[in-house]
């Protein structure tokens, strides 16, 4: 370990690992701190990702792929199913291994990694962040850095300590409960989604295959719903009704900050990436791919700033992110607000009309168009998604 680093990354999830890697690739010194004992564990995720989202950063490897996805099955409250086919759309991962491999790419680029290091404060001089305070095996320590990158996930506090307003409004928090269960007989190439009041009001319920009859089964509901009924009670209800005897291998809680990116994701000496910056796709709740993109942009810019000896350069990160994905997430957020507020009857109607379309023409675009019959104002927003 050095006594000072150019860049310290806090949190070793997908966003942190990509920030560390892209910074290290610029030839600057990088340390990534992780509070947990192991990178990649515990896994709080449905683990679905598009192939393109993965391959921008790492070549596909069967070692961390548990299922190859070709279909989406969208299920309405009355039991009707709309199936959309894609070819080779994506994967269900084994994130425990995937996150570990991502961290290894950062290490291979020259970044150092320290686990069991819990960051509990920032060093700040003249209103500029210049390092971190952390607890390591019971000892309180400090480390200086030119730039700190907060990749500390949904529970992020780094930004707040730097004076950025980062707490999530509880209505924007998708509160999730999930089990990984076995003896679940479903198609291993299909992601199953369930919509409606009984499953996950204002959100969705998922069953994602992991091969060998194992599946991630869970849901997310807004804190607004959680006020009345918890995610766990919806999950228990679903399991009792559908898989009462399924052995449960893991059960977890988790949160997804399901909204647009924070207004400000950099300020002198500090940048935020991944869930900490609210870089999750608000429509799907997926944050692995977008977090890696955010991390890579921040890491690259931070590395450049150190190399040029021009630390202000990190402030260009907000705009770079906005242009790459932030702007698109604003559109997704509007669509989400339209779709997830549909009544049960509306979901049923959309599914029935969709199934009248000839099978080979049932694309995601057609599904959206069908949805629009009920909500024409969404048209403009959806058009934008397919255009940008």
């Amino acid at each position, binding site marked *: 370990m050095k006594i000072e680093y150019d860049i310290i990354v806090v949190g070793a999830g997908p966003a942190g690992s990509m920030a560390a890697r892209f910074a290290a690739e610029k030839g600057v010194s990088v340390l990534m701190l992780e*509070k*947990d*004992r192991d990178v990649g564990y515990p896994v*709080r995720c449905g683990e679905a990702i598009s192939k393109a989202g993965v391959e921008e950063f790492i070549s596909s490897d069967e070692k961390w792929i548990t299922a190859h996805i070709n279909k989406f099955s969208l299920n309405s409250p009355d039991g009707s199913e709309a199936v959309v086919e894609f070819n080779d759309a994506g994967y269900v991962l084994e994130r425990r291994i995937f996150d570990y491999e991502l961290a290894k790419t950062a290490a291979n680029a020259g970044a150092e990694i320290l686990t*069991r290091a*819990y960051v*509990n404060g920032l060093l700040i001089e003249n209103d500029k962040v210049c390092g971190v305070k952390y*607890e390591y095996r019971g000892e309180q320590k400090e480390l200086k850095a030119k730039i700190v990158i907060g990749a500390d*996930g*949904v*529970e*992020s*506090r780094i930004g*707040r300590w730097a004076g950025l307003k980062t*707490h*999530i*409004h*509880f209505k924007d*928090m998708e*509160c*999730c*409960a999930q089990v990984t269960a076995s003896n679940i007989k479903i198609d291993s190439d299909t992601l199953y989604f369930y919509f409606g009041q009984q499953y996950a009001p204002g959100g969705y319920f998922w069953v994602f295959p992991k091969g060998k009859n194992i599946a991630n089964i869970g849901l997310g509901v807004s*804190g*607004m719903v*959680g*006020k009345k009924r*918890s*995610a*766990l*009670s919806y999950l228990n209800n679903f399991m009792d009704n559908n898989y009462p005897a399924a052995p449960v291998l893991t059960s*977890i*809680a*988790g*949160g997804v*900050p399901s909204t647009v990116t924070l207004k400000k994701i950099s300020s002198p000496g500090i940048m935020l990436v991944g869930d900490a910056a609210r870089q999750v796709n608000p429509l799907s709740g997926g944050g692995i791919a977008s977090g890696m993109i955010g991390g890579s942009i921040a890491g690259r810019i931070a590395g450049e700033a150190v190399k040029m000896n021009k630390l202000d350069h990190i402030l260009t990160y907000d705009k770079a992110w906005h242009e790459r994905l932030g702007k698109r997430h604003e559109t997704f957020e509007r669509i989400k607000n339209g779709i997830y507020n549909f009544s049960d009857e509306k979901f049923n109607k959309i599914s029935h009309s969709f199934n009248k379309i000839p099978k080979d023409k049932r694309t995601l675009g057609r599904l959206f168009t069908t949805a629009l019959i009920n909500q024409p104002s969404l048209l403009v927003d959806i058009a934008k998604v397919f255009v940008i």
Partner: protein
Amino acid sequence: MFRQAKNGKLMIEILPDKCDFCGCCVGVCPEDAIELKEAEIFIIDKRCTNCAKCVWSCPIEVIRFNKEGVSL
């Protein structure tokens, strides 16, 4: 004796034995009043305003609102 929040007695109670350490409550707390380590969680009493946002957000019902107050 009760634990003291920012605005009177503390009425928020975490059941640590049941917690999954997922961070939902930390993310929504407007006062930065929850400390979460790998497998340890507690409320920083003097920052908490008893707003209950953490209670509503906990996916597995581990935080409780206790209007009687939480004893020391």
